[in-house]
């Protein structure tokens, strides 16, 4: 059996506000796990509890250095829904190959989504073995209910200006990001935190 599940060498990574990102190499891909990274909050949860589905876009980006341009990015879109009778979450991948899971708690549903993000190790190039790398995990919940337009008679007003400027902030409220690193690939392919 050539399909070897590589032993996971868990590497603690970044802790920011109780959030932890762990990277592991399994086979020829790098997968991540995260704790405390909640992207289902606020209005999306309300929509889910109303029996509607919510799409979430997740992306993990490999960086050669914090704040530098990305080396590679893996993205995936998920459709989440909340079973009204079983009071459990279900997730289905929207992009790529179809995968689904059900009967999850909210935290488990969020974790499952993150675990589906896989970065091919070959995409890292020299990173990991010869040089450390950083990871950036981002989530975005598109807002289905667009912000109401300002009063039709308002024209260019201070309120409209505030609305325009705060639109980004509103968008940010459903966009979350977590940076972690540096990581270094272990001898068996596992990713371990690199001493800073």
């Amino acid at each position: 059996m050539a399909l070897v599940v590589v032993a996971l060498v868990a590497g603690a990574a970044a802790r920011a506000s109780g959030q932890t990102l762990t990277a592991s190499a399994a086979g020829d891909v790098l997968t991540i796990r995260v704790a405390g990274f909640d992207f289902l909050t606020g209005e999306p949860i309300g929509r889910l509890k109303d029996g509607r589905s919510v799409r979430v876009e997740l992306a993990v980006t490999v960086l050669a250095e914090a704040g530098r341009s990305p080396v590679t990015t893996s993205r995936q879109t998920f459709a989440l829904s909340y079973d009204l009778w079983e009071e459990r979450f279900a997730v289905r991948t929207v992009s790529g190959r179809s995968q689904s899971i059900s009967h999850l708690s909210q935290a488990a549903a969020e974790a499952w989504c993150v675990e589906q993000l896989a970065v091919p190790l070959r995409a890292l190039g020299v990173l990991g073995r010869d040089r450390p790398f950083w990871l950036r995990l981002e989530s975005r919940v598109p807002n289905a209910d667009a912000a109401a337009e300002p009063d039709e008679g308002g024209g260019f007003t201070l309120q409209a200006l505030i609305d325009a400027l705060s639109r980004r902030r509103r968008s940010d409220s459903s966009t979350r990001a977590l940076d972690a690193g540096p990581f270094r690939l272990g001898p068996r392919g596992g990713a371990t935190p690199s001493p800073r």
Partner: protein
Amino acid sequence: MPVGFVTRIISRAARRTSGMKLTTSSDNVRSNVAWPAAHRCEPWSRDADRDILETQTFGDGSALAVTTGMKTLALIVTLLATAPQAAAPTQTPVPEGTVIVSAEVTGFDIGRLSPGLRQEIRDLVGTPLSQDRLNELAARIEAERPGYVAAARAFTDPGGRVRVVFIVGRSTDRDREENVNARYVVEHVDITGVPESELTQALRDEVDALVGQRLDSDEANRLEARMEGELPRYDVRRRIRRGSEPGSIRLVYEATKREPPRWLRFEPSRTTVVYHSDQGWGSYLDLGIGWRDVRFTPIVAIDHGDDLIEDYSGFGLRFETRKMGTERLGASLEWTSFEQDWRGATLDALALDPAIPPPYEDRMTLTPLVRFAFSPELSVKAGVSISELDALPPAAGSMMANAAVASIDYDRPQEAASGSTHDVHASFGVRAGSRALESDLVYTRYLGRAWYQYGWGTHRVHVTAMAGGITGEAPLFERFALGDSTTLRGWDKFDISPAGGDRMFHSSVEYGYRGVGVFLDLGSVWDEADDPRVRASTGLSFRAGPAFVAVGFPLNTDNLTAVFMIGLRAGAGLRVQR
């Protein structure tokens, strides 16, 4: 393919499907599946629909299954058990790197794939097995045939040879349902917040048809949109609630009455920051601060001359209320104080025409107005405009230009009809300077304007037209000018009429696709004693939000030069005040 793995998958799936049992025997999988009627094991065929191949994982993490609905499970079993090439599959996973001896597609006519993809599948033969490569090809099959799902499976025969099968099945919307509640049956549909009688019988019938069916989110969303269409004064939101029995749900459409449109609108913003290659920079900023019914608007102008023949700088303040006892009645009071700069061309032209009132150094204006709305679209306003004009040195003293002002405005907000939008604005105003108002200048000024925009998708066409006339002795700030960033783009107003004119007409047509537009302007400004000369210009424009860039070219002239304009403009582009 590990048989134990598959059987565990099927067993788990079977536990979740009442009436289904599965047994296996020997090294080869021998399935004895008692399927529910709806999932009876049938031979795979290309026409078999409602099958979807997917990876299904249960929340307890105890199984990672490959299913396509029950029929595809049966298919996998059948393939394992009966396909000659898959005979006697081993219990162990196929090792990566093992040479593939055959590769085929089942459940789908391979001829419907692109030649390149067909060849790549055939080229697998003789190459080492790579699950990533198989997954990549399966993904490409799905990409080429969006209505289908595909999975790649590798089998090892007793001789250790590896055979690859791409299992392809048709997907359906129900299979792709993103909402786990789609498995529940709609017990009842409630419509709250509005009497059902306000909906058409056809829509009510369609809503009623949801009852007794499994939840179809797309259909429920479609009906939500239809409801909003039939209830233009309501917002409609769909919710799902538990039904009275397990497995049933209630669909609730909640209609909430929208705030009705206001009878009166605040004065539209004139905020402009513009660079004109012939006229330089200028800006006029008015930023409203206020509440629902009241607004204060500070005004700041810096070398602004885009709408007049004077460049003016200064400040002001406007107070507005759009509710005085009733929302139909409003009022405003504007005070401004501007200092003027005059172009040499304007002063030269004024020196040659003593009939035009002299230029001034400062202009202070107070404008109280009362507004009344006949409807949310149609309103009138009336009041006075009191201006004190300080003489330009070496002259001394000041003169008053006090006028009664009145206008009627029609403003119809955007309307969507069959995917298109319409936007109409029109106004006609009169300003009359009168001795009765202690005015030193007696005159009457008329101005009519219309603005229409039609949009469909990313296309838009907007048409503007305006015409005006002045009789009597009007101050310079009342005189008409064309040739700026919104009119006769490509011409310079100080070349056309440096002292303005008392007659004017202008029209413009602009077609835009996304932010890019092409325009044709046509107009003339002249004095009554002169013959009008119609000028035309054309050019390109680009808009991104309030920012705009335009290049205009005068047409009927021997001096073909380009005029470049760039800046920011709030509001609806060409819909500017004059």
